[in-house]
């Protein structure tokens, strides 16, 4: 494998890791606050459909992005109502939302565009432009690092950079601010927050809504950045892969980045069977396609060491006597 191929693969890795990263961070906020979110998938799908449709109808990728966030937030709100306000089962609420998303996205897309559940291809201002970072071409001549900067780091839609910036931002918010302290506390022992006179429900809703916004960005990126339009079930289990990455990362922001890049790398490998063939590994393409999912199963089965989730995760908070 030559350097150019490696750069291409890393470039693809970063592109494919971005929706995972948004979804993973979304899960991180929600689960750190004690609300399990298996509905990342559904929120992303909903967001992707909203982004694709609105971007096509208005010709504006930014209106599409707003619609994506809106669509995802509606689902987040429903999850919050079911699992925080009415103390329902968080897993069931999440699964239900995934089903709803799977159906309603196709339904709406069919009704609007009558193209088998997909939106028409997006062009021009309805897609996210790729940004060339400053000095990318100037520095290309610098050995090794120059091409890396120009080909891998530069030349992505804005949301790729937003996603990367979300990592330190999340770390800072969680570990350096009052909001973060309370958010983490409410996921570990909500009673400690309650007895301190702080509203458990409000904190958890805040976390769930942040997750909604992030899933919105993930979906918008998928429909208008990574691809040119919404397609039926286009998230293809990325919400679950993001959950696996979250467990792999043990609910820590920086580790989430590395985990998502790893999963992204596996996905990019599936797109380039020739790379493996060149180094003598003949693996059928379907097996490569399955790789990220196999890794997900391995992670979820707990084969990568013990991951301790936030202690109050999954349990609605009820004041005890």
């Amino acid at each position, binding site marked *: 494998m030559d350097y150019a191929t490696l750069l291409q693969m890393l470039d693809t890795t970063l592109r494919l890791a971005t929706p995972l990263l948004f979804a993973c961070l979304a899960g991180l906020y929600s689960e750190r606050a004690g609300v399990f979110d298996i509905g990342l998938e559904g929120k992303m799908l909903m967001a992707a459909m909203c982004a694709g449709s609105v971007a096509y109808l208005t010709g504006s990728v930014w209106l599409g992005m707003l619609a994506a966030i809106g669509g995802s937030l509606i689902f987040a709100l429903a999850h919050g109502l079911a699992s925080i306000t009415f103390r329902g089962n968080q897993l069931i609420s999440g699964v239900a939302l995934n089903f709803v998303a799977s159906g309603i996205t196709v339904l709406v897309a069919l009704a609007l565009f009558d193209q088998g559940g997909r939106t028409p291809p997006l062009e021009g201002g309805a897609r996210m432009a790729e940004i060339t970072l400053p000095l990318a071409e100037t520095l290309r001549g610098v050995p090794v690092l120059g091409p890396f900067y120009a080909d891998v780091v530069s030349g992505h839609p804005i949301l790729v950079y937003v996603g990367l910036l979300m990592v330190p931002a999340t770390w800072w918010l969680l570990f*350096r*601010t009052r909001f973060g*302290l*309370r958010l983490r*506390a409410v996921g570990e022992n909500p009673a*400690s927050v309650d*007895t301190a*006179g*702080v509203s458990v429900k409000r904190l958890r809703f805040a976390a769930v809504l942040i997750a909604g916004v992030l899933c919105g960005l993930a979906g918008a990126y998928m429909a208008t950045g990574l691809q040119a339009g919404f397609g039926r079930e286009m998230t293809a289990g990325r919400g679950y892969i993001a959950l696996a990455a979250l467990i792999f990362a043990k609910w820590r922001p920086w580790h989430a980045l590395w985990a998502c890049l790893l999963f992204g790398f596996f996905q990019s490998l599936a797109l380039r069977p020739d790379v493996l063939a060149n180094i003598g590994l003949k693996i059928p393409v379907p097996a490569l396609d399955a790789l990220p999912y196999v890794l997900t199963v391995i992670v979820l089965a707990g084969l990568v060491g013990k991951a301790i989730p936030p*202690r109050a995760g999954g349990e609605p908070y009820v004041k005890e006597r």
Partner: protein
Amino acid sequence: MAGANETGRQASAAPFAIELKGISKAFGPVQANKDISIQVAKGSIHGIIGENGAGKSTLMSILYGFYKADSGEILINGRVTPIPDSQSAIRAGIGMVFQHFKLVQNFSVLENIILGAEDGAMLAPSLSKARKVLDDLSREYELDVDPDALIEDLSVGHQQRVEILKALYRQAEILILDEPTGVLTPAEADHLFRILRGLKDQGKTIILITHKLREIMEITDTVSVMRRGQMTATVKTAETSPEQLAELMVGRKVLLQVEKAPAQPGRTILEVENLRVKDDQGVERLKGISLTIRAGEILGIAGVAGNGQSELLEVLGGIARATGSVRMNGQPLDLTGRHSDGQSRRADGIAHVPEDRQVLGLIMDFTAWENVAFGYHHAPEFQKNALIMDNAAIRADCEAKMATFDVRPPIPTLAAKNFSGGNQQKIVVAREIERNPDLLLVGQPTRGVDIGAIEFIHKQIVALRDAGKAVLLVSVELDEIMSLSDRIAVMFDGRIMGERDPETTNERELGLLMAGITGGDAA
């Protein structure tokens, strides 16, 4: 007129720190608090005692803004102060140390202390301020804890100090402690009392909720007694006695000391040699336990919770595996193989009243009669034929046991969770004792059980002993160990530190052993 002026002047000169007037609170049909009025003098330690379910916790929860009273008034320092939520309670200068600590286990001490009382959106300034305040407080009140330690690495006693510090950091003038000594060693409890006295000397007001009469007598200035949601009496501690308080709590005369004749030990029932247990992390929890119990005696195991007592019970009860040797009636017990389970142990004549009845003793959502059959459901008298169980027989058996053990209400079809703690425990004890085992393992028999039921359960254990059975009693309540046991073994860090005779030993000596100190014959 003159009298009214007199009281008016007095009230303004020294208003009560807390005054409750006619507080009532009902949960559905249950009247948890009925027209409760109480006055707590500033700078005093005021005890509140009562049995489980007497309404103590409800009353304190109302005071801390967890519940809203249906009627009544709260006055803080003479001023009417509505307390709709915990925030208002904190603002009114009330701090609460709950029985189950409200701490975040993987946060540092400092983080726990500032949680909810941060000074701004950023953590750094709050943390450094808290560090300074903490330093002052710990020097002033013997409340030293490492501010950077994680809660999960602290002992229970230190965790409790963090809870007290939390309240003081919020400038609490009134401190409520709910059953604070339940989890402490005698030495830790003494330390806590020193802290409380120090706080009192600084003019803080302290409310101590407990069911331990000895503590009430030792540290409080005034005691209020609650029974069935009502305040039955408020007396000066110096003018009362434990016997009088017990009677006020239960509503009848209660025997505080267990009456028992001297033991008449017979043949050896259980021999344990060099028992060792490792937990999931590979840490050795039992480090070579050896002991024997004979027929007709009660061996009490004293110790602070978590020093291997649970593991010992679990191994003997067939729940956990171990190495070493155990002989029951001369026959070796299987400690690792197919026969190291509860069913085999019961067949060998071992009955087990586990420490945590809600987890190991009962299935809380199942009915009383189902629970009474568990473990013995294979018994021939419970079978109609090879396939079908005789539920009617089990129910009849349950009714009989409920009558013998005075379980209230005596309704076999009621779910276990709907009984009070004491009655749940009676169900478990009835199930295990009535099968007439050779050896009864009993862990924390009276944890969360009210005085009336404690007396009853103690009597049953002694009766079993007098019937020539062996009893292994594990309890963290030193009083219970001392009054029931014929011999006392003290466990510390997976070892038996020594054996003492309850007639000749004392709490101080046992307390030292419980802390792992064996300074020769210390007593």
